[in-house]
């Protein structure tokens, strides 16, 4: 077998987290610019924006569930907190968009702390139950306090005005992509830091973690707050994209979709969040074109999307239990072993180390 040389040293990314993740984000930003500006139609561009804000919510949940081991069925509700905060600010104030988004993140993070504190005492199904109640109950407040949240009618958000002749929808998409990439860089940094290690240590063994000096409850609350902040930003972007925030925008199914998308993409990985986002946005699209082709009515649409999603989820879990990204990683490491390592020597070495 011909030996393919390993890529030269300069090709490797630097280890410093900020530099490394910024390089990746800038490359990704370039790709997204080409994709949205030159390749896709305006309609599909809007979908890319949706993928971006789903990726934010999924990335945050991925850290909470994948890295820290806490399950949440309530992220739709936390998105609602971010969305309503941003919408209320847009209706009542004239802050600039960045400030409004930051406040939305902060409000959702505070909600995350409030949810996260009781969550430190709950595990598995009990935590799932508690967060489920959150997902069902919190959006109803939108109806309950109609004078503030305007009930079913909802609050109208003001889309950011683009500079010059840029298409407003394209401009919003770019803002969403930029927001997603910034969040990805920050989350990747966090996971490379001692906090990432603490999250995973607490997930694996709480007793051992506390004996190592990790404040288990505080670590769990931090994970919840970070995750909720991401959901808040995703919610604010959802509010901007749909133009209106009403209680109907945040049904229980949103929370479940986010959880399923996160698992599908690969729990604990940030790239997986993008796969999950793609699945959440495109499966309903494919479903509607399939049902159109099959001659099903519009009523079949909604169900078909859910059925396809469920089927793909089952398939992925069977083929790659650690999600799409986990599957790619396995293929990657297999290819790496086959292509870059001389066969004979390496096999004997792995046998030696494996046999002790």
């Amino acid at each position, binding site marked *: 077998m011909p030996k393919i040389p390993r890529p030269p040293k300069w090709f490797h990314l630097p280890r410093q987290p900020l530099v490394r993740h910024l390089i990746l984000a800038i490359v990704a930003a370039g790709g997204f610019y080409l994709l949205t500006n030159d390749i896709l139609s305006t309609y599909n561009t809007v979908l890319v924006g949706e993928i971006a804000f789903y990726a934010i919510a999924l990335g945050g949940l991925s850290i909470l569930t994948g890295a820290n081991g806490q399950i949440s069925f309530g992220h739709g509700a936390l998105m609602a907190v971010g969305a309503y905060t941003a919408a209320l600010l847009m209706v009542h104030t004239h802050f600039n968009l960045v400030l409004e988004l930051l406040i939305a993140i902060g409000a959702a993070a505070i909600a995350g702390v409030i949810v996260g504190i009781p969550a430190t005492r709950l595990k598995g199904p009990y935590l799932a139950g508690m967060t489920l109640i959150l997902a069902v109950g919190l959006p109803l407040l939108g109806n309950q306090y109609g004078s503030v949240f305007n009930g079913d009618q909802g609050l109208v958000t003001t889309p950011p005005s683009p500079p010059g002749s840029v298409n407003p929808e394209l401009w919003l998409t770019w803002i969403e992509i930029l927001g997603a990439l910034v969040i990805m860089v920050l989350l990747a940094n966090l996971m490379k*830091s001692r906090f990432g290690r603490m999250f995973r240590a607490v997930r694996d063994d709480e*007793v051992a973690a506390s004996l190592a000096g990790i404040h288990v409850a505080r670590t769990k609350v931090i994970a919840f707050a970070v995750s909720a902040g991401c959901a808040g930003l995703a919610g604010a972007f959802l509010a901007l994209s749909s133009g209106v925030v009403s209680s109907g925008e945040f049904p229980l199914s949103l929370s479940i979709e986010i959880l399923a998308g996160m698992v599908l993409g690969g729990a604990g990985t940030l790239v997986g969040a993008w796969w999950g986002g793609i699945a959440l946005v495109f499966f309903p699209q494919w479903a509607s074109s399939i049902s159109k082709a099959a001659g099903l009515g519009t009523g079949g649409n909604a169900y078909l999307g859910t059925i396809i999603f469920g089927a793909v989820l089952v398939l992925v879990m069977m083929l790659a239990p650690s999600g799409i990204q986990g599957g790619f990683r396995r293929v990657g490491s297999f290819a790496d072993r086959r292509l870059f390592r001389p066969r004979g020597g390496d096999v004997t070495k792995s046998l030696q180390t494996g046999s002790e």
Partner: protein
Amino acid sequence: MPGAGNGMTAAHTARALHDASDELRVSELSVVFGGLAALDGVSLSVAKGEIVGVIGPNGAGKTTLFNVICGFVRPETGTITFRNKPLRHHQPHDLAKLGIARTLQGVGLFRGLTVVENVVAGAQRRVRAGIVSAVIGGWRSSREEMALRRRALAILEEMDLDEHADRFPAALPYGIQKRVALARALMSDPDLLLLDEPASGLSEHQMDDLGSMVRELRSRMGVLLVEHHMDLVMSTCDRIVVLNFGRVIAAGTPAEVQRDPEVTTAYLGEDVSAVHQNAGDDGDA
């Protein structure tokens, strides 16, 4: 004066229950679980550079004692002081900051972390970078991480574990996993090390290695060792405390404890010990 020169053994034999050089001091500790006394007036102390063994039959209260010291269980009565400071309402995660490290009866490694990451996790006591620095991923946070990693690799090398640094614990034999757990405890550079059955599941040879490793630690820290394997305890410890049904039934040097008839009774039962004593008397005669 206790602890002042004239050889370790002599000093420790003459040692009173408590003295000023103690790092850890446990006095009159009592814990009751549902009407049953798990610990009943237990006192012991560990000085810097001293290895103290806690032995006793199953259910004697050894692990409960550790759990009380670590703050997992609150005692009904009694006090714990570390370096003359009383430990009240302390939580397990406070121990590392105080300079106390503990290994667990199993291995208690983080299965989702590589060996080197597991060891780095033991250094929680020395990390400084806050969450803002971590999120930004600046040099302050990354330099600290790199220094910790280097230190963890140095400890792994010292313990002959460096070849496993990037593996996950599940891929390693049990004996190696136990050594990694010890390496993680040492990463915090503790002043007092609590070892909860470190030899369980080890082969004879591995146990000898463990014994010499623990003896070497004496120069840097005090060690409190809970263990079932008598050979290891007898050959390693400076002093031994014997627990039975939550009470201290004997304490002293290994030789003293071995001679104590109550200890044999506790371990072997009344009748057998009588036979044993008779046999011993015969031998002496």
